[in-house]
């Protein structure tokens, strides 16, 4: 009886997976084999892997996603670490999560106001006699805004990882003569690595296909695979090529999941035990 109930619980989840995860992916793969005249072809893939345009775009996307991830990580780890020792950490955490409740588009428009020629930041610089600088539509602005948006998704898993860390181990390391730096490198960091990894996944993967910000903040001077997909579906109406890029992205994401995933971690751990 109980077993039956258990399987019944899986039905909605299974249906959900089938309808909204597996079916769309299959549709994308299917679409990617058609050219603009609705004929079956492998040409989309040939174009993708032969054209300098798409390969540069792939390289750019991976590069920007990498930079965004590194920037977020550099800000988030210390932030999560400090958060752990704060008095009212739930409140501080809430303040970090709060911006995620606001629509992405609104935040992007706010940044346009801040970075604009007559915007807040340039006015502020003006007080120090610095002439208005071109801030919008630069790589720096794009990475800044993307990092700003992704930071909560990086802090949360790292924070959880640090919370789970046994304080006793840190104390033991300090008692046994390790410097604070050594303790951090050899004890705290390895033990919170799983949090860092899920944070990296949560940031790197969406960053690969950012498109709204590339247009609003990057002024389409930053072109990523996400922009290209948007372009192919909405303006070019070349759904085949758009799907092909989509398939490439999905495969890339699987590869990244595999590289940073749990399985990998266990293998490393096992290795250490043997040594």
């Amino acid at each position: 009886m109980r077993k039956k109930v258990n399987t019944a619980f899986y039905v909605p989840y299974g249906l959900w997976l089938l309808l909204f995860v597996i079916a769309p992916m299959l549709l994308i793969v299917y679409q990617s084999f058609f050219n603009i005249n609705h004929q079956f072809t492998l040409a989309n893939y040939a174009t993708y892997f032969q054209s300098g345009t798409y390969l540069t775009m792939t390289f750019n996307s991976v590069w920007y996603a990498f930079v965004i991830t590194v920037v977020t990580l550099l800000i988030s780890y210390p932030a999560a670490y400090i958060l752990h020792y704060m008095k009212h950490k739930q409140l501080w955490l809430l303040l970090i999560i709060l911006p995620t409740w606001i629509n992405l588009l609104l935040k992007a428009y706010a940044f346009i106001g801040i970075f604009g020629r007559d915007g807040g930041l340039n006015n502020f610089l003006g007080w120090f006699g610095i002439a208005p600088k071109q801030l919008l539509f630069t790589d720096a602005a794009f990475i800044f805004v993307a990092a700003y948006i992704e930071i909560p998704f990086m802090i949360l898993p790292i924070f959880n990882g640090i919370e789970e860390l046994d304080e006793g181990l840190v104390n033991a390391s300090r008692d046994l003569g390790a410097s604070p730096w050594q303790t951090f490198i050899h004890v705290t960091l390895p033990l919170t690595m799983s949090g860092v990894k899920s944070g990296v996944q949560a940031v790197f993967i969406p960053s690969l296909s950012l498109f709204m910000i590339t247009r609003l903040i990057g002024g389409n001077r930053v072109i990523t695979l996400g922009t290209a997909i948007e372009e192919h579906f909405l303006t070019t109406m070349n759904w085949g090529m758009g799907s092909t890029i989509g398939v490439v992205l999905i495969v890339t994401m699987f590869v990244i999941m595999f590289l940073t995933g749990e399985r990998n971690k266990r293998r490393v751990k096992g290795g250490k035990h043997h040594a």
Partner: protein
Amino acid sequence: MKKILTYILLILLVCTGLAAASHKLAATQGATSGKVLNLANWGDYIDPALVKKFEKQSGYHVNVETFDSNEAMYTKVKQGGTSYDLTVPSEYMVQKMAQDKLLIPLDKQRLHGLGNYGHYYMNKTFDPGNKYSLPYFWGTLGIIYNDKFIKPGSVDHWDDLWNPKYKDSIMLIDSARDIMGMGLVSLGKSMNTTDAPTLDAAKAKLDAMSGNVKAVVADEIKMYMENNEAPLAVDWSGEASEMLAENKHLHYVVPSEGSNLWFDNLVIPRTAKHFDAIYAFLNFMTEPKNAAQNAEYVGYATPNDAARKMLPASIRNDRQFYPNETTMKHLQVYENLDPTVVGKYNDLFLEFKMFKH
């Protein structure tokens, strides 16, 4: 938790209630006598006062539904789930819809006052003899400049945009056809070019101005230009007229060597049912007084010459939006190109956007 659930349920109930009520209201207003007209139009593209006037005069109730791209409207008409009586596609879309047998020919017997339309705007290649369409508004592609940064008269031609002193200053409209077209015109070629070497040459020409391009964006250009964010932009006259209304420092130029001439046109899609209402409305909109009122409200250029004469002189003689004869002669209308050629335009445009030196 329970409280939150109750609130969510409450909000949902109120929303459904309101939606049902408004649906009912709309249904009773229209369906009582079948005296309706379903107009699919671009957002804010008709004076609401005119709609009221037409309803009063003719007794037909007008349901206005809006769309925001030709392609979205095309898909809706093609799939047939709609009951549009009239819609307003751009010129290349008229050609495409006609080719795909999605349009019903106009019955010229039932139309009055076709003579009001100027000869520049009738019998164009996208619809020879105006078999399917009546021009609604028209416009151009041109350069918007801010006189705070640019001396009036120093940017009159496309080639001026290639001047190295405008480094990082130009905003381009994110539209493959228009920007590639600009490259083609600056080479003295047709905006409907289909052969690959010419297109490649146009793209190479565009690459040379890549350093001057600040951003390639869409609707946002309006906001940026109004805020003095950039000194120069390439955009459509319709967008330009809205920018000029907001910022006195902005001016619009149509390069005399040539540019695009675009039309938005009234057509009857295959889904139409209420033909009396359709012809009543087409004739109503052709009347100079009404067309003039609409042109003043929307701010675009009217193809109705009789209506133009009724507009205030400041609008009627505005060379920014009603260019002179010489410029008019050099304007080119887009033709609906073969999908593979459109693909070529798009690929080259994408490459141009990615190009950085």
